[in-house]
């Protein structure tokens, strides 16, 4: 295919350079190394904050490339053709596309698929023909001595198709930094991904036709057919490889270390296979990533997931950097043929075509959309149509014989790329601010929103069914059910295949909160998410006899003191952590999988039930924050509590050994001691909480003889609990975190 098999023409030119002397070889190597070192240094731009807020990173990188190229030229060396199209399409482009495809937000993408396809297909076609056609017309209007008169229609159209495709790399680079709202982001980005099929087909077609010379209607129809095959074929190839990858990941529970490898290998193979059959490699890669992700993520270990995520980000970052730098180098080096008319007309036509295309298409699209696109949206979409390295590489691949104007084309392409990246890229951020375009939501996805999203889905599906209308939601629901019934069973290992989405989301959130809490040093620092003092107690309905308030034995002042100190640390994350204690964390629950965790949880619940049977007591009084604080923090409180335990009869469930006879014997002891004691019954959620359930040593009645001077012990207890001793905590944290 075009991208993989450069024409013979170029290799002949390279043959002349074959006998390189040793010193030249060395110089070549040094240059390569220099450019890679330079490129790895340049993410250091982030250290200059003001600079990177004004100028997008892509511009800076191109500038660096220009400098490097200039330096090399000054040194009198011949710049190696670093932006070799083969290198570009085989090595530099796939990581970026895979990163985009794997992390593609499926829901907004699917919801807007119609719009995206319209822009990608019809928009690109319009751009190509408009630019190509008008350029030809302008060329014909030139006076006699001009070169441009020799330019025929088909090469113009070819040029138009190359220069009109919105580039995913450039769009990603610029849009990452402006944090625009999800809808616009997915529209422009989706368009840049899907227009690959169109570009491929047009390029191929015009290339072939320009050698034939004439085009008939049959050819045009065949062209359309070709497009369908390329696009759909690419997606199918990607989907097949995605399913294969998902299926493979089902069996990798014993070889966790190489799980990320499967993801990368299958994706790359999808890309190569598609390119080999002259299908759209980019679409294959996107389809592969998007299809395999839900299943793979359910199967692989947490560590593999992290590995995949960071490797993808790393590779795509490096690729992007290299692409822009090499673009700069190639600009300095390339042999240009500057033609004022051609270049300026190209740039103007590109802009005009884009604007007209977007406005016209939106007019049609809005008739079919529920959420219409406003003028502001249209402007951003039009303005966000950046060209990039793909256009350049495609131009580079053109055959020099057949296209004598190749150098002029390249110059024009580079000018357009520079214009869009520099001018549009730099000004889009201030324009977004100026127009007050809606930005990306900063808020974390809350569990309420997730519940309501699901609820709304079912509701709308139900209403559609009542209307008898087979709409959007109906088919989505059918697909989901099919997915759940058949596909998930095949592709996801074990218990996870039956886990509904809401629970999966909830668990993910729990995990995240748990990790955050541990990393923040056991709760000493308050997570800033929702600064409130509302806790589980506040929402639990009180039991009818409010016995608890009648029994406070701790002096009120002490209560308040403790409460004040510990209130700040009691956050909603408390009940997130209930299934974790130090031991399960150390044993790395991520590796054991959810089923184990859930088993443990259910065991804990059973144990609780047993305990509740022994104790006919209401739950803890106001200073239960003390205890829960102990339960929360990874460590020191618990150990300190243990020291006290021999003198103070506490109900201590040490989860290191949930069913150990020791804990149960303690219970027996307490059962005898507790005839008159009344501890307030814990609010219901605590029943499920598997954390260390420490019942406080509340000396309720005066005649708890066995407790032996409860007040003294209590005070010691409370004193030690009210002094958390941050340094101790940090020490405790180290071994786990390292």
């Amino acid at each position, binding site marked *: 295919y075009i991208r993989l098999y450069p024409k013979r023409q170029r290799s002949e030119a390279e043959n002349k350079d074959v006998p390189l002397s040793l010193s030249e070889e060395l110089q070549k190597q040094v240059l390569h190394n220099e450019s890679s070192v330079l490129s790895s240094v340049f993410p250091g731009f982030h250290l200059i904050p003001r600079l990177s807020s004004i100028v997008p990173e892509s511009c800076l990188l191109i500038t660096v490339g220009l400098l490097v190229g200039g330096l090399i030229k000054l040194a009198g060396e011949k710049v190696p053709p670093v932006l070799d199209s083969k290198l570009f399409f085989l090595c530099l482009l796939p990581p970026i596309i895979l990163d985009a495809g794997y992390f593609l937000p499926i829901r907004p993408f699917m919801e807007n698929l119609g719009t995206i396809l319209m822009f990608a297909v019809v928009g690109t076609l319009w751009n190509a023909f408009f630019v190509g056609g008008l350029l030809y017309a302008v060329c014909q209007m030139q006076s006699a001595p001009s070169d441009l008169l020799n330019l025929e229609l088909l090469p113009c159209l070819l040029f138009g198709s190359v220069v009109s495709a919105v580039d995913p790399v450039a769009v990603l680079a610029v849009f990452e930094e402006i944090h625009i709202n999800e809808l616009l982001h997915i529209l422009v980005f989706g368009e840049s991904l899907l227009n690959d099929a169109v570009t491929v087909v047009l390029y191929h077609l015009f290339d072939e036709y320009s050698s034939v010379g004439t085009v008939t209607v049959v050819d045009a129809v065949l062209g359309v057919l070709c497009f369908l095959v390329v696009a759909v074929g690419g997606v199918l190839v990607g989907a097949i490889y995605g399913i294969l990858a998902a299926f493979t990941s089902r069996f990798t529970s014993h070889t966790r270390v190489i799980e990320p490898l499967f993801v990368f290998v299958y994706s790359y193979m999808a890309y190569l296979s598609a390119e080999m059959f002259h299908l759209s490699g980019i679409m294959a890669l996107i389809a592969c990533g998007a299809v395999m992700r839900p299943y793979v993520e359910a199967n692989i270990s947490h560590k593999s997931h992290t590995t995949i995520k960071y490797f993808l980000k790393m590779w795509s970052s490096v690729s992007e950097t290299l692409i822009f730098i090499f673009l700069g180098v190639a600009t300095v080096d390339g042999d240009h043929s500057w033609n004022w008319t051609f270049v300026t007309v190209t740039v103007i036509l590109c802009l005009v075509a884009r604007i007209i295309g977007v406005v016209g298409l939106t007019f049609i699209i*809005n008739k079919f959309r*529920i959420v*219409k696109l406003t003028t502001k949206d249209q402007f951003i979409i039009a303005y966000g149509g950046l060209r990039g390295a793909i256009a350049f590489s495609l131009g580079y691949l053109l055959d020099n014989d057949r296209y004598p104007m190749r150098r002029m084309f390249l110059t024009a392409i580079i000018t357009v790329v520079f214009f869009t990246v520099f001018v549009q890229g730099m000004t889009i951020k201030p324009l977004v601010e100026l127009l007050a375009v809606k930005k990306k*939501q900063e808020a974390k996805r*809350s*569990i*309420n*929103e997730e*519940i*309501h999203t*699901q*609820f*709304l889905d*079912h*509701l*709308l*599906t*139900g*209403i*559609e*069914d*009542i*209307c*008898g*209308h087979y*709409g*959007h*939601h109906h088919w989505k629901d059918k697909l989901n*059910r099919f997915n759940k019934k058949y596909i998930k069973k095949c592709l996801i290992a074990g*218990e996870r295949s*039956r*886990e*509904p989405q*809401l*629970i999966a989301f*909830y668990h993910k959130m729990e995990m995240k909160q748990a990790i955050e809490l541990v990393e923040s040093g056991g709760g000493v620092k308050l997570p800033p998410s*929702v600064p*409130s*003092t*509302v*806790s*589980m*107690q*506040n*929402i*639990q*309905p009180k039991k009818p006899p409010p016995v608890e*308030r009648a029994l406070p034995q701790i002096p009120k002042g002490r209560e308040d003191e403790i409460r004040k100190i510990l209130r700040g640390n009691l956050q*909603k994350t408390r*009940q*997130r952590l209930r299934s974790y204690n130090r031991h399960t964390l150390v044993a790395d629950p991520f590796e054991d999988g959810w089923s184990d965790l*859930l088993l443990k*949880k*259910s065991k804990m*619940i059973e144990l609780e039930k047993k305990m509740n049977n022994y104790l006919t007591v209401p739950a803890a009084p*106001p200073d239960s*924050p003390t205890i829960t604080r102990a339960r929360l923090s990874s460590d020191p409180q618990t150990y300190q509590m243990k020291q006290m335990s021999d003198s103070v009869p506490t109900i201590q469930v040490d989860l290191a050994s949930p069913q150990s006879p020791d804990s149960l014997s303690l219970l027996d002891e307490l059962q005898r001691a507790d005839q008159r004691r009344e501890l307030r019954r814990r609010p*219901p*959620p605590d029943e*499920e909480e598997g954390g260390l359930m420490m019942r406080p040593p509340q000396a309720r009645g005066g005649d708890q003889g066995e407790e032996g001077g409860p007040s003294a012990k209590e005070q010691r207890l409370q004193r030690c609990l009210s002094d958390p001793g941050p340094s101790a905590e940090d020490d405790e944290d180290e071994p786990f975190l390292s």
Partner: protein
Amino acid sequence: MGALNSLPDEPQYVGLAEKTGFSFEQIGILHKRFKQLSNNGETLRREDFNTIPDLLCNPIRSEIIEAFFDRRNFRQTDAVGTVHEIGFGEFLLVMSHFRPPSIRLDDEQKEVIRTEKLRFLFNMHDTDNDGTITLEEYRHVVEELLSRSGALGKETAKGIADAAMLEVASISMGHMEPDEFYEGITFEHFNKLLKEFEVESRMNIRFMNMDTTTLCK
């Protein structure tokens, strides 16, 4: 669609069109569907909804059906309680909650529509009509959503509902004494909670292109 050329009940439709905002075409189609569901009767009962096979797989089926019979959704001020059967007018009123907002609305009108839709959702959750969604009611909602998964069931549902409730309380109340009790989610809290949810653009059905072939089931 030739059937639309002759709408026998057109004079009645004018009143309905004004109240609900549907076009005559849409009302005609929905009337057809109503007749189908009610077996050409004048009123619709709960059992009539059982004839829709796809609805049986829906986890929140009972809530949806209840919503049709809930007086609070009939746009009569201060009506509470449920009815046993509904006429076409009420059917249309309930359906109108799912109409997409016109693009030409100003912010105030958009706010009104948004409040309406949120109110509908609220009413679906608040089954005992007391104006707040208590923890029990919310738990019920989550249980229903998870009801088709069976396996993990009640405990997890409880946990999720509790977490969600805690979140609402944190967002709405901010600061609470440990012995204060959060009664339940009132409509203002509900509004605040789902501020970012964009209900007005998500809670919509396309009533435009319904064709009669699919209606014949």
